[in-house]
Protein backbone atom coordinates (compact mmCIF):
# COMPACT_ATOMS: atom_id res chain seq x y z
CA UNK A 1 0.00 0.00 0.00
CA UNK A 2 2.55 2.55 1.14
CA UNK A 3 5.19 1.54 -1.36
CA UNK A 4 2.61 1.62 -4.15
CA UNK A 5 1.63 5.14 -3.21
CA UNK A 6 5.26 6.16 -3.03
CA UNK A 7 5.94 4.59 -6.41
CA UNK A 8 2.98 6.28 -8.06
CA UNK A 9 3.83 9.66 -6.59
CA UNK A 10 7.49 9.45 -7.58
CA UNK A 11 6.73 8.14 -11.04
CA UNK A 12 4.23 10.92 -11.65
CA UNK A 13 6.73 13.48 -10.34
CA UNK A 14 9.49 12.09 -12.54
CA UNK A 15 7.48 11.94 -15.75
CA UNK A 16 5.52 15.11 -15.11
CA UNK A 17 8.71 16.99 -14.27
CA UNK A 18 10.45 15.68 -17.35
CA UNK A 19 7.56 16.65 -19.62
CA UNK A 20 7.42 20.09 -18.02
CA UNK A 21 11.17 20.51 -18.60
CA UNK A 22 10.72 19.83 -22.30
CA UNK A 23 7.65 22.02 -22.74
CA UNK A 24 8.82 24.93 -20.61
CA UNK A 25 9.87 27.97 -22.64
CA UNK A 26 11.70 29.54 -19.71
CA UNK A 27 15.08 27.97 -18.98
CA UNK A 28 14.94 28.89 -15.30
CA UNK A 29 11.55 27.22 -14.90
CA UNK A 30 12.80 24.20 -16.83
CA UNK A 31 15.60 23.89 -14.30
CA UNK A 32 13.13 23.90 -11.42
CA UNK A 33 11.02 21.24 -13.13
CA UNK A 34 14.21 19.25 -13.59
CA UNK A 35 14.72 19.47 -9.83
CA UNK A 36 11.23 18.03 -9.34
CA UNK A 37 11.97 15.26 -11.81
CA UNK A 38 15.24 14.39 -10.04
CA UNK A 39 13.39 14.26 -6.74
CA UNK A 40 11.01 11.82 -8.35
CA UNK A 41 13.96 9.66 -9.38
CA UNK A 42 15.16 9.72 -5.77
CA UNK A 43 11.71 8.53 -4.76
CA UNK A 44 11.93 5.70 -7.30
CA UNK A 45 15.28 4.64 -5.82
CA UNK A 46 13.70 4.67 -2.38
CA UNK A 47 10.89 2.42 -3.72
CA UNK A 48 13.31 -0.33 -4.65
CA UNK A 49 15.07 -0.09 -1.30
CA UNK A 50 18.18 1.68 -2.53
CA UNK A 51 18.19 4.18 0.31
CA UNK A 52 21.80 5.23 -0.10
CA UNK A 53 21.33 5.84 -3.80
CA UNK A 54 18.22 7.92 -3.08
CA UNK A 55 20.06 10.10 -0.58
CA UNK A 56 22.99 10.46 -2.97
CA UNK A 57 20.59 11.53 -5.68
CA UNK A 58 19.30 14.27 -3.36
CA UNK A 59 22.74 15.43 -2.29
CA UNK A 60 24.35 15.43 -5.72
CA UNK A 61 21.51 16.70 -7.88
CA UNK A 62 19.45 18.90 -5.58
CA UNK A 63 22.45 20.33 -3.80
CA UNK A 64 25.07 20.49 -6.49
CA UNK A 65 23.99 20.05 -10.06
CA UNK A 66 20.79 22.07 -10.06
CA UNK A 67 22.39 25.02 -8.29
CA UNK A 68 25.30 24.93 -10.72
CA UNK A 69 22.88 24.79 -13.65
CA UNK A 70 20.97 27.74 -12.25
CA UNK A 71 24.25 29.62 -11.93
CA UNK A 72 25.23 28.77 -15.47
CA UNK A 73 21.84 29.77 -16.88
CA UNK A 74 21.89 33.01 -14.99
CA UNK A 75 25.39 33.96 -16.01
CA UNK A 76 24.64 33.22 -19.67
CA UNK A 77 21.30 35.02 -19.54
CA UNK A 78 18.22 32.87 -19.08
CA UNK A 79 15.55 35.32 -20.19
CA UNK A 80 12.03 34.30 -21.05
CA UNK A 81 11.58 36.12 -24.37
CA UNK A 82 12.10 33.94 -27.39
CA UNK A 83 13.72 36.62 -29.51
CA UNK A 84 17.12 37.90 -28.54
CA UNK A 85 18.17 41.52 -28.69
CA UNK A 86 19.23 41.30 -32.31
CA UNK A 87 15.74 40.22 -33.33
CA UNK A 88 16.71 36.61 -34.02
CA UNK A 89 14.59 33.74 -32.84
CA UNK A 90 16.44 31.79 -30.17
CA UNK A 91 14.56 28.53 -30.60
CA UNK A 92 14.56 27.78 -34.32
CA UNK A 93 12.43 25.03 -35.74
CA UNK A 94 14.52 21.93 -35.46
CA UNK A 95 15.22 19.90 -38.57
CA UNK A 96 13.45 19.21 -41.83
CA UNK A 97 11.63 16.23 -43.34
CA UNK A 98 14.82 14.17 -43.66
CA UNK A 99 15.89 14.63 -40.03
CA UNK A 100 12.37 13.94 -38.76
CA UNK A 101 12.25 10.73 -40.77
CA UNK A 102 15.68 9.60 -39.52
CA UNK A 103 14.81 10.45 -35.94
CA UNK A 104 11.52 8.60 -36.14
CA UNK A 105 13.21 5.54 -37.57
CA UNK A 106 15.91 5.65 -34.89
CA UNK A 107 13.29 5.97 -32.15
CA UNK A 108 11.39 2.99 -33.57
CA UNK A 109 14.49 0.80 -33.66
CA UNK A 110 15.66 1.75 -30.18
CA UNK A 111 12.15 1.26 -28.77
CA UNK A 112 12.06 -2.25 -30.22
CA UNK A 113 15.45 -3.04 -28.75
CA UNK A 114 14.41 -1.74 -25.34
CA UNK A 115 11.18 -3.74 -25.45
CA UNK A 116 13.15 -6.83 -26.40
CA UNK A 117 15.43 -6.29 -23.40
CA UNK A 118 12.67 -5.47 -20.97
CA UNK A 119 10.29 -8.25 -21.96
CA UNK A 120 11.80 -10.94 -19.70
CA UNK A 121 11.84 -8.48 -16.81
CA UNK A 122 8.08 -8.13 -16.96
CA UNK A 123 7.32 -11.78 -17.59
CA UNK A 124 9.43 -13.54 -14.94
CA UNK A 125 10.05 -12.91 -11.24
CA UNK A 126 7.32 -10.42 -10.56
CA UNK A 127 7.47 -10.41 -6.79
CA UNK A 128 10.63 -9.47 -4.98
CA UNK A 129 10.31 -8.95 -1.25
CA UNK A 130 12.28 -6.17 0.29
CA UNK A 131 13.99 -6.61 3.60
CA UNK A 132 12.95 -3.41 5.30
CA UNK A 133 15.98 -2.53 7.33
CA UNK A 134 18.85 -3.90 5.35
CA UNK A 135 21.22 -1.08 4.61
CA UNK A 136 22.82 -0.86 1.21
CA UNK A 137 25.55 1.49 2.41
CA UNK A 138 28.01 -1.16 3.55
CA UNK A 139 27.52 -3.29 0.45
CA UNK A 140 28.07 -0.34 -1.85
CA UNK A 141 31.17 0.66 0.09
CA UNK A 142 32.62 -2.83 -0.02
CA UNK A 143 31.89 -3.25 -3.72
CA UNK A 144 33.37 0.14 -4.57
CA UNK A 145 36.57 -0.65 -2.71
CA UNK A 146 36.96 -4.19 -4.06
CA UNK A 147 35.25 -5.23 -7.31
CA UNK A 148 34.77 -1.81 -8.84
CA UNK A 149 37.98 -0.21 -7.65
CA UNK A 150 39.05 0.55 -11.22
CA UNK A 151 35.87 2.48 -12.04
CA UNK A 152 36.18 4.27 -8.72
CA UNK A 153 39.75 5.34 -9.42
CA UNK A 154 39.00 6.34 -13.00
CA UNK A 155 36.14 8.55 -11.86
CA UNK A 156 38.40 10.18 -9.29
CA UNK A 157 40.97 10.87 -12.03
CA UNK A 158 38.18 12.40 -14.10
CA UNK A 159 37.17 14.64 -11.21
CA UNK A 160 40.79 15.65 -10.69
CA UNK A 161 41.01 16.54 -14.36
CA UNK A 162 37.86 18.64 -14.09
CA UNK A 163 39.27 20.39 -11.05
CA UNK A 164 42.57 21.21 -12.77
CA UNK A 165 40.69 22.34 -15.86
CA UNK A 166 38.55 24.69 -13.79
CA UNK A 167 41.63 26.09 -12.10
CA UNK A 168 43.35 26.66 -15.45
CA UNK A 169 40.31 28.35 -16.98
CA UNK A 170 39.56 30.61 -14.04
CA UNK A 171 43.15 31.67 -13.48
CA UNK A 172 43.98 35.21 -14.56
CA UNK A 173 46.11 35.02 -17.68
CA UNK A 174 49.51 36.58 -17.45
CA UNK A 175 50.21 39.04 -20.21
CA UNK A 176 53.61 38.46 -21.71
CA UNK A 177 55.43 41.70 -22.26
CA UNK A 178 58.72 41.85 -23.96
Amino acid at each position, binding site marked *: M*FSNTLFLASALLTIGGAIAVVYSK*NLMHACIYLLASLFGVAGLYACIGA*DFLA*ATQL*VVYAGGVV*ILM*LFAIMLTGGT*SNKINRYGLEKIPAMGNKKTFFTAGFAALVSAMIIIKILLPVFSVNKVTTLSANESSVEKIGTLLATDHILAFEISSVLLLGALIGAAVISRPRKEIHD
Partner: protein
Amino acid sequence: MNSTVVSYFSQSNELTSLIAGLSKLLGFDASSLVAFIIFAIFAGIIVAVMATIGGLGTYAERKISADLQARIGPNRVGPFGLLQFLADGVKMILKEDIITSNADKFTFNLAPVLCLVGVFATLAVVPYSSGFMLADLNVGIFYLVGMASLVGVGVFLGGYASNSKWSMLGGMRGASQIISYEIPATLSIIAIVLLAGGLSMKTLINGQGGAPQDWYLFHNPFAFMGFFVYFISALAETNRAPFDLPEAESELVSGYHTEYTGMKFGLFALAEYIEVFVVCGVAVALFLGGYKVPFDLGSGQILVEKLGLDGMIAQNIGQFLELGSFFTKTLILYYVVIWVRWTLPRLRVDQLMTLCWKYLTPIALFNLIGCAVWMYAFNGKSIFTLLFHAAASGGGHH
Protein backbone atom coordinates in the same frame (compact mmCIF):
# COMPACT_ATOMS: atom_id res chain seq x y z
CA MET B 1 11.28 1.29 10.03
CA ASN B 2 13.43 0.08 12.84
CA SER B 3 12.91 2.54 15.66
CA THR B 4 10.47 5.36 15.41
CA VAL B 5 7.66 6.90 17.34
CA VAL B 6 5.36 4.16 16.07
CA SER B 7 7.53 1.27 17.16
CA TYR B 8 8.00 2.96 20.54
CA PHE B 9 4.29 3.15 21.15
CA SER B 10 3.64 -0.35 19.88
CA GLN B 11 5.48 -1.61 22.98
CA SER B 12 2.55 -0.62 25.19
CA ASN B 13 -0.31 -3.01 25.86
CA GLU B 14 -3.05 -0.41 25.44
CA LEU B 15 -2.10 0.17 21.83
CA THR B 16 -2.05 -3.53 21.05
CA SER B 17 -5.56 -3.94 22.48
CA LEU B 18 -6.70 -0.82 20.63
CA ILE B 19 -5.42 -2.24 17.37
CA ALA B 20 -7.16 -5.54 18.06
CA GLY B 21 -10.44 -3.75 18.83
CA LEU B 22 -10.22 -1.58 15.74
CA SER B 23 -9.38 -4.57 13.56
CA LYS B 24 -12.51 -6.32 14.83
CA LEU B 25 -14.61 -3.21 14.30
CA LEU B 26 -13.39 -2.36 10.82
CA GLY B 27 -12.92 -5.86 9.56
CA PHE B 28 -9.31 -5.54 8.44
CA ASP B 29 -5.89 -5.38 10.04
CA ALA B 30 -5.79 -1.89 11.53
CA SER B 31 -2.16 -1.88 12.63
CA SER B 32 -0.92 0.11 9.64
CA LEU B 33 -3.84 2.54 9.97
CA VAL B 34 -3.03 3.13 13.64
CA ALA B 35 0.64 3.49 12.78
CA PHE B 36 -0.26 6.08 10.18
CA ILE B 37 -2.43 8.00 12.64
CA ILE B 38 0.27 8.01 15.33
CA PHE B 39 2.77 9.12 12.73
CA ALA B 40 0.51 11.94 11.54
CA ILE B 41 -0.14 13.14 15.08
CA PHE B 42 3.54 13.26 15.93
CA ALA B 43 4.47 14.89 12.65
CA GLY B 44 1.90 17.56 13.49
CA ILE B 45 3.34 17.97 16.98
CA ILE B 46 6.88 18.33 15.65
CA VAL B 47 5.91 20.87 13.01
CA ALA B 48 3.95 22.89 15.59
CA VAL B 49 6.75 22.76 18.16
CA MET B 50 9.37 23.67 15.61
CA ALA B 51 7.35 26.58 14.26
CA THR B 52 7.05 27.82 17.84
CA ILE B 53 10.77 27.37 18.37
CA GLY B 54 11.41 29.28 15.16
CA GLY B 55 9.12 32.04 16.37
CA LEU B 56 10.63 32.11 19.84
CA GLY B 57 14.02 32.20 18.10
CA THR B 58 13.22 35.66 16.78
CA TYR B 59 12.20 36.69 20.28
CA ALA B 60 15.39 35.22 21.76
CA GLU B 61 17.45 36.93 19.10
CA ARG B 62 16.02 40.34 19.99
CA LYS B 63 16.17 39.81 23.72
CA ILE B 64 19.75 38.54 23.69
CA SER B 65 20.90 41.25 21.33
CA ALA B 66 19.24 43.75 23.63
CA ASP B 67 21.10 42.29 26.59
CA LEU B 68 24.39 42.44 24.74
CA GLN B 69 23.80 46.04 23.75
CA ALA B 70 22.45 47.15 27.16
CA ARG B 71 18.92 47.70 25.88
CA ILE B 72 15.65 46.23 27.12
CA GLY B 73 14.28 44.64 23.98
CA PRO B 74 10.66 43.61 23.39
CA ASN B 75 8.70 43.87 26.65
CA ARG B 76 5.18 44.97 25.75
CA VAL B 77 3.33 41.97 24.31
CA GLY B 78 2.65 39.33 26.91
CA PRO B 79 4.87 38.54 29.92
CA PHE B 80 8.43 39.76 29.23
CA GLY B 81 7.36 40.39 25.65
CA LEU B 82 7.16 36.65 25.05
CA LEU B 83 4.20 36.91 22.70
CA GLN B 84 6.03 39.33 20.43
CA PHE B 85 6.53 36.61 17.83
CA LEU B 86 2.78 35.99 17.63
CA ALA B 87 2.18 39.70 17.14
CA ASP B 88 4.82 39.66 14.40
CA GLY B 89 3.17 36.67 12.78
CA VAL B 90 -0.23 38.35 12.77
CA LYS B 91 1.34 41.46 11.29
CA MET B 92 3.05 39.42 8.56
CA ILE B 93 -0.15 37.62 7.61
CA LEU B 94 -2.19 40.82 7.49
CA LYS B 95 0.33 42.71 5.36
CA GLU B 96 -0.23 43.19 1.67
CA ASP B 97 1.44 40.55 -0.44
CA ILE B 98 3.33 42.46 -3.10
CA ILE B 99 4.88 40.82 -6.12
CA THR B 100 6.99 43.26 -8.07
CA SER B 101 5.75 43.68 -11.61
CA ASN B 102 8.95 42.46 -13.29
CA ALA B 103 9.38 39.49 -11.00
CA ASP B 104 9.26 35.94 -12.26
CA LYS B 105 6.04 35.10 -10.44
CA PHE B 106 6.24 31.31 -10.45
CA THR B 107 9.78 31.25 -9.09
CA PHE B 108 9.07 34.17 -6.76
CA ASN B 109 6.29 32.24 -5.06
CA LEU B 110 8.19 28.98 -5.07
CA ALA B 111 11.40 30.20 -3.43
CA PRO B 112 10.20 30.65 0.19
CA VAL B 113 8.34 27.35 -0.02
CA LEU B 114 11.48 25.54 -1.19
CA CYS B 115 13.38 27.00 1.77
CA LEU B 116 10.72 25.88 4.21
CA VAL B 117 10.30 22.43 2.63
CA GLY B 118 14.04 21.81 2.79
CA VAL B 119 14.14 22.66 6.47
CA PHE B 120 10.98 20.80 7.49
CA ALA B 121 12.04 17.69 5.58
CA THR B 122 15.18 17.50 7.71
CA LEU B 123 13.06 17.45 10.88
CA ALA B 124 12.05 13.87 10.08
CA VAL B 125 15.42 12.46 11.09
CA VAL B 126 16.38 14.81 13.92
CA PRO B 127 16.71 12.56 17.00
CA TYR B 128 14.74 14.19 19.79
CA SER B 129 14.89 11.12 22.01
CA SER B 130 15.37 7.39 21.53
CA GLY B 131 11.62 6.86 21.10
CA PHE B 132 10.64 10.20 19.68
CA MET B 133 12.00 10.49 16.19
CA LEU B 134 9.85 10.30 13.13
CA ALA B 135 12.09 8.11 10.98
CA ASP B 136 15.37 6.42 11.74
CA LEU B 137 16.59 6.05 8.18
CA ASN B 138 19.63 3.95 7.44
CA VAL B 139 21.09 6.97 5.71
CA GLY B 140 19.74 9.49 8.24
CA ILE B 141 22.51 12.06 8.35
CA PHE B 142 23.12 11.83 4.61
CA TYR B 143 19.43 12.42 3.94
CA LEU B 144 19.58 15.44 6.22
CA VAL B 145 22.51 16.93 4.30
CA GLY B 146 20.71 16.34 1.00
CA MET B 147 17.45 17.90 2.10
CA ALA B 148 19.16 20.88 3.68
CA SER B 149 20.71 21.71 0.32
CA LEU B 150 17.22 22.56 -0.98
CA VAL B 151 17.50 25.70 1.11
CA GLY B 152 20.33 26.86 -1.13
CA VAL B 153 18.11 26.47 -4.18
CA GLY B 154 15.39 28.46 -2.42
CA VAL B 155 17.76 31.28 -1.50
CA PHE B 156 19.16 31.46 -5.01
CA LEU B 157 15.75 31.41 -6.70
CA GLY B 158 14.46 34.05 -4.29
CA GLY B 159 17.32 36.30 -5.32
CA TYR B 160 16.90 35.59 -9.01
CA ALA B 161 13.13 35.89 -9.21
CA SER B 162 12.92 39.26 -7.48
CA ASN B 163 14.58 40.88 -10.48
CA SER B 164 16.41 43.36 -8.31
CA LYS B 165 20.16 43.87 -8.21
CA TRP B 166 20.37 43.64 -4.43
CA SER B 167 18.37 40.45 -4.36
CA MET B 168 20.41 39.02 -7.20
CA LEU B 169 23.72 39.71 -5.45
CA GLY B 170 22.35 38.34 -2.20
CA GLY B 171 21.04 35.20 -3.87
CA MET B 172 24.30 34.56 -5.69
CA ARG B 173 26.31 35.06 -2.55
CA GLY B 174 23.94 32.83 -0.63
CA ALA B 175 24.07 29.97 -3.09
CA SER B 176 27.84 30.07 -3.52
CA GLN B 177 28.31 30.30 0.23
CA ILE B 178 25.98 27.39 0.95
CA ILE B 179 27.54 25.02 -1.59
CA SER B 180 31.06 26.00 -0.49
CA TYR B 181 30.50 25.49 3.20
CA GLU B 182 28.68 22.22 2.65
CA ILE B 183 32.09 20.69 1.95
CA PRO B 184 33.82 21.24 5.33
CA ALA B 185 30.55 20.54 7.15
CA THR B 186 30.06 17.24 5.35
CA LEU B 187 33.70 16.25 5.78
CA SER B 188 33.40 16.81 9.53
CA ILE B 189 30.23 14.74 9.56
CA ILE B 190 32.02 11.96 7.66
CA ALA B 191 34.75 11.90 10.31
CA ILE B 192 32.11 11.20 12.97
CA VAL B 193 30.41 8.63 10.74
CA LEU B 194 33.79 6.92 10.60
CA LEU B 195 33.93 6.76 14.41
CA ALA B 196 30.38 5.45 14.74
CA GLY B 197 30.40 3.12 11.76
CA GLY B 198 26.98 4.01 10.39
CA LEU B 199 24.91 6.77 8.85
CA SER B 200 21.74 6.34 10.87
CA MET B 201 21.16 8.82 13.68
CA LYS B 202 20.60 5.98 16.14
CA THR B 203 23.99 4.43 15.36
CA LEU B 204 25.69 7.80 15.66
CA ILE B 205 24.20 8.49 19.08
CA ASN B 206 24.50 4.96 20.46
CA GLY B 207 28.24 5.17 19.96
CA GLN B 208 28.31 7.85 22.61
CA GLY B 209 27.38 7.95 26.27
CA GLY B 210 25.63 10.33 28.60
CA ALA B 211 28.69 11.68 30.36
CA PRO B 212 30.97 14.17 28.57
CA GLN B 213 33.95 11.80 28.40
CA ASP B 214 31.88 9.42 26.27
CA TRP B 215 30.99 12.09 23.74
CA TYR B 216 32.55 12.08 20.29
CA LEU B 217 33.66 15.65 21.00
CA PHE B 218 36.25 14.26 23.43
CA HIS B 219 36.82 11.00 21.61
CA ASN B 220 40.06 12.18 20.06
CA PRO B 221 41.73 15.50 19.24
CA PHE B 222 40.63 15.36 15.61
CA ALA B 223 36.96 15.01 16.48
CA PHE B 224 37.40 17.92 18.88
CA MET B 225 38.67 20.12 16.06
CA GLY B 226 35.99 18.69 13.78
CA PHE B 227 33.28 20.02 16.06
CA PHE B 228 34.48 23.59 15.63
CA VAL B 229 34.91 23.18 11.89
CA TYR B 230 31.37 21.83 11.70
CA PHE B 231 29.96 24.57 13.86
CA ILE B 232 31.59 27.37 11.86
CA SER B 233 30.50 25.82 8.57
CA ALA B 234 26.99 25.35 9.92
CA LEU B 235 26.87 29.03 10.87
CA ALA B 236 27.83 29.89 7.31
CA GLU B 237 25.38 27.42 5.82
CA THR B 238 22.48 28.94 7.71
CA ASN B 239 23.59 32.43 6.62
CA ARG B 240 24.08 33.56 10.18
CA ALA B 241 26.46 36.31 11.21
CA PRO B 242 29.42 36.66 10.89
CA PHE B 243 28.63 34.99 7.57
CA ASP B 244 25.35 36.77 6.81
CA LEU B 245 26.65 38.21 3.57
CA PRO B 246 23.57 37.20 1.55
CA GLU B 247 21.54 39.64 3.61
CA ALA B 248 24.21 42.17 4.50
CA GLU B 249 22.11 45.21 5.46
CA SER B 250 24.81 47.78 4.90
CA GLU B 251 25.47 46.71 1.31
CA LEU B 252 22.43 44.87 0.02
CA VAL B 253 19.48 46.36 1.96
CA SER B 254 18.26 42.91 2.91
CA GLY B 255 19.78 40.62 0.30
CA TYR B 256 17.77 37.88 -1.31
CA HIS B 257 14.53 38.71 0.46
CA THR B 258 14.57 42.45 -0.18
CA GLU B 259 11.49 42.31 -2.42
CA TYR B 260 9.49 39.91 -0.28
CA THR B 261 6.63 41.15 1.85
CA GLY B 262 4.20 39.70 4.30
CA MET B 263 4.17 36.02 5.06
CA LYS B 264 6.58 35.10 2.25
CA PHE B 265 9.23 37.07 4.04
CA GLY B 266 8.03 35.42 7.22
CA LEU B 267 8.58 31.98 5.67
CA PHE B 268 12.20 32.86 4.87
CA ALA B 269 12.76 34.05 8.43
CA LEU B 270 11.02 31.01 9.90
CA ALA B 271 13.07 28.66 7.72
CA GLU B 272 16.28 30.33 8.85
CA TYR B 273 15.49 30.06 12.55
CA ILE B 274 14.34 26.45 12.31
CA GLU B 275 17.41 25.58 10.27
CA VAL B 276 19.60 27.00 13.01
CA PHE B 277 17.81 24.70 15.43
CA VAL B 278 18.27 21.69 13.15
CA VAL B 279 21.94 22.44 12.63
CA CYS B 280 22.47 22.79 16.38
CA GLY B 281 20.57 19.55 16.89
CA VAL B 282 22.85 17.77 14.44
CA ALA B 283 25.92 19.17 16.22
CA VAL B 284 24.50 17.84 19.49
CA ALA B 285 23.67 14.45 18.01
CA LEU B 286 27.06 14.03 16.39
CA PHE B 287 29.42 15.50 18.94
CA LEU B 288 27.67 16.15 22.25
CA GLY B 289 26.08 12.81 23.01
CA GLY B 290 22.68 13.54 21.47
CA TYR B 291 19.78 12.63 23.72
CA LYS B 292 21.86 10.42 26.04
CA VAL B 293 21.33 10.94 29.74
CA PRO B 294 24.06 10.05 32.28
CA PHE B 295 23.82 6.73 34.17
CA ASP B 296 21.64 5.26 31.42
CA LEU B 297 18.55 6.90 32.89
CA GLY B 298 17.06 7.19 29.42
CA SER B 299 16.17 3.50 29.10
CA GLY B 300 14.38 3.52 32.47
CA GLN B 301 16.12 0.33 33.63
CA ILE B 302 17.41 1.92 36.85
CA LEU B 303 13.98 3.31 37.71
CA VAL B 304 12.45 -0.14 37.33
CA GLU B 305 15.09 -1.75 39.52
CA LYS B 306 15.42 0.87 42.27
CA LEU B 307 11.93 2.34 42.50
CA GLY B 308 9.91 -0.63 41.30
CA LEU B 309 8.05 1.37 38.67
CA ASP B 310 6.08 -0.20 35.84
CA GLY B 311 8.27 -0.75 32.78
CA MET B 312 6.33 1.49 30.44
CA ILE B 313 6.07 4.37 32.93
CA ALA B 314 9.78 4.18 33.66
CA GLN B 315 10.46 4.24 29.94
CA ASN B 316 8.25 7.27 29.49
CA ILE B 317 10.10 9.10 32.27
CA GLY B 318 13.34 8.13 30.55
CA GLN B 319 12.02 9.54 27.28
CA PHE B 320 11.26 12.86 28.92
CA LEU B 321 14.74 12.97 30.46
CA GLU B 322 16.19 12.31 27.01
CA LEU B 323 14.06 15.03 25.44
CA GLY B 324 15.27 17.39 28.16
CA SER B 325 18.86 16.42 27.53
CA PHE B 326 18.60 16.95 23.78
CA PHE B 327 16.72 20.23 23.96
CA THR B 328 18.98 21.67 26.69
CA LYS B 329 22.15 21.05 24.71
CA THR B 330 20.60 22.23 21.46
CA LEU B 331 19.23 25.42 22.96
CA ILE B 332 22.59 26.18 24.58
CA LEU B 333 24.17 25.94 21.13
CA TYR B 334 21.31 28.09 19.79
CA TYR B 335 22.24 30.69 22.38
CA VAL B 336 25.88 30.54 21.25
CA VAL B 337 24.81 31.11 17.64
CA ILE B 338 22.89 34.24 18.59
CA TRP B 339 25.70 35.36 20.88
CA VAL B 340 28.21 35.04 18.03
CA ARG B 341 25.95 37.02 15.73
CA TRP B 342 25.84 40.02 18.02
CA THR B 343 29.53 39.86 18.92
CA LEU B 344 31.49 39.45 15.72
CA PRO B 345 31.62 41.81 12.74
CA ARG B 346 30.71 40.55 9.29
CA LEU B 347 33.32 39.07 6.97
CA ARG B 348 34.02 40.28 3.45
CA VAL B 349 33.18 38.02 0.51
CA ASP B 350 36.80 37.19 -0.27
CA GLN B 351 37.51 36.52 3.42
CA LEU B 352 34.50 34.21 3.48
CA MET B 353 35.76 32.14 0.56
CA THR B 354 39.33 32.19 1.88
CA LEU B 355 38.13 30.88 5.23
CA CYS B 356 36.19 28.08 3.59
CA TRP B 357 38.58 26.87 0.92
CA LYS B 358 41.98 27.68 2.41
CA TYR B 359 41.37 26.94 6.08
CA LEU B 360 38.25 24.96 6.92
CA THR B 361 38.34 22.46 4.05
CA PRO B 362 42.00 21.44 4.56
CA ILE B 363 41.47 21.24 8.32
CA ALA B 364 38.37 19.10 7.82
CA LEU B 365 40.27 16.79 5.46
CA PHE B 366 43.10 16.55 7.97
CA ASN B 367 40.59 15.72 10.70
CA LEU B 368 39.03 13.03 8.55
CA ILE B 369 42.38 11.35 7.92
CA GLY B 370 43.32 11.86 11.56
CA CYS B 371 40.15 10.14 12.73
CA ALA B 372 40.79 7.24 10.36
CA VAL B 373 44.35 6.83 11.61
CA TRP B 374 43.16 7.05 15.21
CA MET B 375 40.55 4.36 14.64
CA TYR B 376 43.19 2.15 13.06
CA ALA B 377 45.95 2.79 15.60
CA PHE B 378 43.96 2.64 18.83
CA ASN B 379 41.28 0.22 17.75
CA GLY B 380 38.52 2.79 18.12
CA LYS B 381 39.13 3.55 21.78
CA SER B 382 38.58 7.09 22.98
CA ILE B 383 41.38 9.15 24.49
CA PHE B 384 39.81 8.88 27.95
CA THR B 385 39.66 5.11 27.79
CA LEU B 386 43.32 5.06 26.83
CA LEU B 387 44.22 7.46 29.65
CA PHE B 388 42.31 5.43 32.22
CA HIS B 389 43.99 2.27 30.99
CA ALA B 390 47.40 3.94 31.18
CA ALA B 391 46.66 5.24 34.67
CA ALA B 392 45.43 1.85 35.84
CA SER B 393 48.44 -0.05 34.47
CA GLY B 394 50.76 2.71 35.72
CA GLY B 395 49.26 2.33 39.19
CA GLY B 396 49.79 -1.43 38.98
CA HIS B 397 53.52 -1.00 38.54
CA HIS B 398 53.96 0.74 41.89
